[in-house]
């Protein structure tokens, strides 16, 4: 487990560096938050007073230390613009984003599995070409493209789904799922296409293996061989891809929440940056980067379990 320990330390180091980068972004920015907060007509002494009240007059390392220890001890501060504790803003909106990401992950796995098995099992040329075309289209549709296309098709042309909004999953599950369908498919599509490709490639390889031929020789039906033997032995690379995609999924959520008028963490981040609500923006950036780095770490550890040789050589490069 020395390998896992080393990877964890490396991930912590990356996270630490990321927190410094995020903190410094603000100080590269034109115009300090104090100027923004004090308003356009403020005198210099008013701006200074605001800066003092936000501790912006302290030395940079000290400010960084206050910010980091605050976040780590569960006191992420208060939003300058919304004048509310950031902790309660995040907890109010986290549910929406988590729903969206869980929905997208499930759909990515299901669509990826179906498309992958269809691609690997299809014998007829036309069928294979169709599956290939579908996955090329899915791969080429970034969330902001597929979102708008879905709204045009399913909310405006055929009015079967709501064009935007959200509902609480706990109090109103069926509405909540209706609101979730289009945004989660939009996030899931490109990943599903890649998962399908990886799975199909591995499945074609596994088909040639000894144990599969044995199962076929024993007279097991084709679907049973596929589901019991071929898929489980071919799923590794696809799972790694799913891990990588979950880590990057917040980027998709940012875009989709803005297009579907969902109030989640992504739209909170975008609004914070547009309103120059820097402390809130910094906290949310740190949250999303921490998530991405943790997923990177889990994926790397998962990959090393898949491929022990990597662990012995000192890690995936």
């Amino acid at each position, binding site marked *: 487990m020395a390998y896992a320990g080393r990877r964890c330390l*490396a*991930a912590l*180091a*990356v*996270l630490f*560096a*990321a927190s410094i*980068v995020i903190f410094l*972004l*603000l100080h*590269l*920015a*034109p115009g300090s938050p104090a100027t923004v907060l004090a308003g356009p007509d403020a005198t210099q002494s008013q701006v200074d007073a605001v800066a003092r009240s936000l501790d912006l007059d302290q030395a940079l390392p000290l400010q960084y230390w206050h910010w980091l220890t605050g976040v780590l001890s569960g006191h992420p501060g208060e939003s300058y613009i919304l004048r509310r504790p950031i902790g309660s803003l995040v907890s109010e909106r986290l549910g929406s984003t988590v729903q969206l990401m869980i929905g997208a992950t499930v759909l990515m796995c299901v669509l990826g599995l179906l498309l992958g098995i269809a691609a690997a099992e299809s014998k007829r040329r036309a069928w294979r070409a169709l599956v290939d075309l579908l996955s*090329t*289209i899915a*791969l*080429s*549709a*970034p*969330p*902001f*493209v597929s979102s*708008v*296309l879905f*709204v*045009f098709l399913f909310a*405006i042309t055929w009015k079967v789904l709501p064009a935007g909004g959200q509902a609480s999953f706990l109090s109103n599950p069926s509405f909540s799922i209706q609101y979730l369908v289009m945004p989660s498919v939009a996030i899931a599509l*490109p990943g599903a296409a*890649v998962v399908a*490709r*990886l799975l199909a490639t*591995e499945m074609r390889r596994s088909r040639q293996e000894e144990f599969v031929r044995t199962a076929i020789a024993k007279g097991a039906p084709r679907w049973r061989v596929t589901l019991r033997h071929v898929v489980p032995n071919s799923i590794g*690379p696809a799972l*790694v*891809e799913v891990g*990588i995609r979950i*880590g*990057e999924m*917040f*980027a*998709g959520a*940012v*875009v989709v929440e*803005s*297009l579907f008028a969902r109030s989640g963490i992504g739209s909170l981040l*975008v609004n914070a*940056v*547009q309103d120059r609500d*820097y402390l809130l*923006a910094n906290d949310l*950036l740190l949250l*999303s*980067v921490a998530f*991405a*780095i943790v997923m*990177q770490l889990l994926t790397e550890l998962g*990959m090393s379990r898949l*491929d022990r040789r990597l662990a012995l050589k000192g890690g*995936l*490069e």
Partner: protein
Amino acid sequence: MTVVDAAVLRRPAVPVRGRRSLLSGLRTSRGIAGVALTVLIVGCGLIVPLFLSWGPLQQSGNSLAPAWTSPHLFGTDEVGRDLLSRVLAGIRLDSLLVVIAVPISAVLGTALGLLSAASAAAGNSAQWIFNLLLGFPGVVMGIAVSIAIAPGQTAIIVAMVLTTMPAFGRQARITTMGQLSRDYVAAATVAGTPRREIITRHILPNVLDTVIVRIAPAVSQAIMLEGALSVVGLGIQPPQASLGQMIATGSQYLSNAPMYSLAPLVVVLLAVMGLSLIGDALNEAVLRG
């Protein structure tokens, strides 16, 4: 890692027989389709505006004019600007941003990746930088950059470079490590060839071939980044025309002026499709060797 799939990255470096195999990849049906799509889109963006009487910023006084009528083939937007002309301007803008950002990213990424040939410590620090950059996926990087630099073209170019660089860098590093373990490097070292010469004469040419394969995915990643950032309002700022911004603004008029959003949407879809076909064709060519 958008179109960069894990399996490709895990594969050991393959011996490459030079640019000819890459060109042969482009002559497959996928390659031809991809090049045709990409050339068609960029060509339209460059040539068609010469025949239009409306500029992308010119207001005709006729707002939300219907599509498929003269003189506005795609109709007009909410302030009466010709949408065809704006879509073409969006294509030109994306092409310009990508032509600036992707070469910078490819050169920086390759250079950092090659560092692993110089020393293990340098290689590890490069790897560490890539991991840091990958912590800011896609539009999150764009948002971070737009805090430090005001939203606009410069911020987008910087974000494009930072998000596409790790794929180039990791690819260069994998190929470099693969080449380092080969006999000819040991032979050259024994023969007293300086390290720098081994890198530039022998390793770099092999690295270049595998890096070239990463260009098409990087370009589509960059286009998607511009689109996504402009959709959330932190990318190209109005009145300048960008595909992402037109898709987002037009989505408010989908029921009465669907072409507003759908025209730029189809352009992005076809462009990314063309690029991924090229990427696939080149990738297969390199794997075939």
